[in-house]
């Protein structure tokens, strides 16, 4: 599906921007609101991206237009908006993770990273 959409020019090309990658990775766990995504992205295992609200919601806006994420609801006071990965978002994340995995494997083969260590 992702390849079909890529051919039509409707899906973002990889490599993804660090912010988009971090958002996709955070939402892979489940529905989350803005600050939760920011917090996940800040953590080393979430990409280590220092992202403010402007970058977060700007990226989410474009990702919704690209069909990578969708809004699933808001908090009672409508101040918190929750987002979820779409099927396309999952495919794009999988392609990006494969790309990164290949790069890490290549770095290991070159002796730039220890074998068997955490990447």
């Amino acid at each position, binding site marked *: 599906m992702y390849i079909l959409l890529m051919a039509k020019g409707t899906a973002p090309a990889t490599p993804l921007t660090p912010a988009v990658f971090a958002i996709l990775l955070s939402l892979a766990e489940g529905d989350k609101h803005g600050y939760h995504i920011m917090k996940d992205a800040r953590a080393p295992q979430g990409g280590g991206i220092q992202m403010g609200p402007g970058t977060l*919601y700007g990226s989410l*806006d474009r990702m919704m237009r690209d069909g990578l994420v969708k809004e699933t609801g808001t908090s009672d006071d409508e*101040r918190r908006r929750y987002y979820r990965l779409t099927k396309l978002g999952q495919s794009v994340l999988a392609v990006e993770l494969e790309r990164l995995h290949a790069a890490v494997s290549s770095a290991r083969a070159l002796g730039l990273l220890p074998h068997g260590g955490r990447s």
Partner: protein
Amino acid sequence: MTRSSPTTDMLDRLYALALCLYPAPFRQNYGLAMSQAFRDALHDHALSRRTLIPLVLRDLITSLAKEHFAMLRDTFARPALVLNALVLAGISTVIALAIYVIPLQVLRLGTDDPQVELAGNLTWQLEQGVAPTDAVPSGTVEMARSLSPFVAAYDEQGRPLASQARLNGQTPTLPRGILDFVRQHGEDRFTWRPSQGIRIAAVVQRVDGSHRGFVLAGRSMREEAVRQGLLIQLAGLAWIAMLGLVFLGTVCLGWFTRPKAA
């Protein structure tokens, strides 16, 4: 529930003010959620203020630039709007070219009128048997300086028989190609450059009868060149004005039909 301190409230209000700097559709869509995310960050004890404030300031600068650029792109770079502007710019360019080319042609064709009459008269006299030296009026016209029309008579090989025209003290000779053309077609009207910087509106006609050959009637185009310069300035100004109007119209159309907040 987290208790707010005066500093937290002040930072919250400052951030709410800063949100006014975002484009209206983006602010309307995400303003509340952004405020909430900032408030959550303020209350997150794992994130110190010394880390948060520079982070938010950097984020404001970069995301403001990005969102304003995106708004400009969405407002003014829509394919229909760009196509509309390009078509109008193309029409303006064609109109400006017409403003230049049509009067230029009319001007150029009008320049030949006296020479056509002079050449016709001289041809008629020579064909009636009048000697070239008698048919060509006396007096000299210096082609490099004078604006007066002049005539000259040439034999079948293009050698001058009688001439009013002088160029650097000599009677000018006609280009061989012109003579060949006139032999076949009877007449030629053309812009002649006998020397650097001199342009002559020339008419050459075939002469039959006892004085077979050619007659030339010409006139300097110096004044026409001045008028042409004026014409190109006017056409250029009209073009710039039309493109300016197209630009303003496109900006206004883009602004009034810009995508509204979802």
